């Protein structure tokens, strides 16, 4: 964000709007949502989330015996060994870790013009980031309501997945607008989605 804003201000004074965003920016956009400066922070956030979720998984699988909890006493233990956390075949933290990894990989695949050349990965990325955030909010609500406890790292993980949503959605919008343009021109949306035309 900061890098992008910096670039914008530096260039804005000298270069005209359309060219400042570079040829990689979608039509009518003031920046390119697929640029690395836009995507790497999201990938980094996903990797931090992956680290946290992996640590919590190790506790849930009893590989490590205790879990870091600076604020809420026995809260993390209560939450991480609760019924909800074991409702699925895999520990819920493991599913979180897998989602974060999918976010990171989907954030890295493709070049600076992927909003146009690879809409499928952009849409997959958006769909992976969105529901992860929704599930996070649900789990945050479950913590105190069902168990009367809070878990610091679970809250941190939820915060990360929420912060990723907005920044990931701009690219999704650019891809959807591109598919809309293809359709308006009478082209094949299906082929454009897979980057075949």
């Amino acid at each position: 964000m900061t890098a992008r804003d910096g670039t914008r201000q530096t260039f804005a004074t000298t270069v005209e709007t359309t060219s400042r965003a570079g040829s990689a920016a979608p039509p009518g956009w003031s920046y390119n949502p697929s640029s690395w400066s836009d995507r790497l922070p999201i990938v980094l956030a996903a990797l931090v989330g992956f680290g946290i979720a992996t640590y919590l998984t190790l506790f849930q699988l009893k590989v490590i015996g205790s879990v870091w909890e600076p604020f809420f006493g026995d809260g993390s233990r209560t939450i991480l060994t609760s019924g909800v956390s074991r409702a699925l075949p895999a520990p819920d933290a493991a599913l979180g870790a897998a989602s974060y990894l999918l976010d990171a990989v989907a954030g890295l695949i493709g070049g600076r013009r992927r909003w146009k050349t690879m809409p499928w990965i952009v849409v997959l990325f958006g769909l992976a980031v969105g529901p992860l955030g929704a599930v996070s909010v649900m789990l945050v609500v479950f913590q105190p309501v069902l168990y009367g406890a809070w878990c610091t790292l679970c809250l941190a993980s939820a915060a990360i997945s929420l912060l990723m949503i907005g920044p990931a959605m701009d690219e999704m919008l650019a891809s959807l607008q591109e598919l809309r343009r293809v359709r308006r021109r009478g082209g094949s949306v299906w082929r454009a989605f897979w980057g075949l035309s």
Partner: protein
Amino acid sequence: MRARYASVAVGLWVMAAPGVLGLGGDERMLAHILGPIVVALSVIALSGVTRFVRWAIVVPGVVLAILPWLLGFDTAVALMFAACGVAVALLAFVRGPVDERYGGGWTALFRDDEPGSST
């Protein structure tokens, strides 16, 4: 932007209120369900491209303002929650600055003509 941060702060307070004020029962339940929802929607609405999500905050805001009275909470507690609810609902109306242009935004997906370069 400042409106979103304020909204996040109010939501965090609602989440923390039961622990800080020692509330239990329905009061705790209400705060622990609506607080995270307000925080989540406000965080998503931080980004210019998802700024429209701010309108969704009106719903938990109104519920937070009305439900404490229907559930017969303590007047002081009900007033506190109502103030928080009204605050986030009103903050939702503040758009805040959006510096970037998004090729006509989400509405461009539903228009038949070529989108202009505004928004």
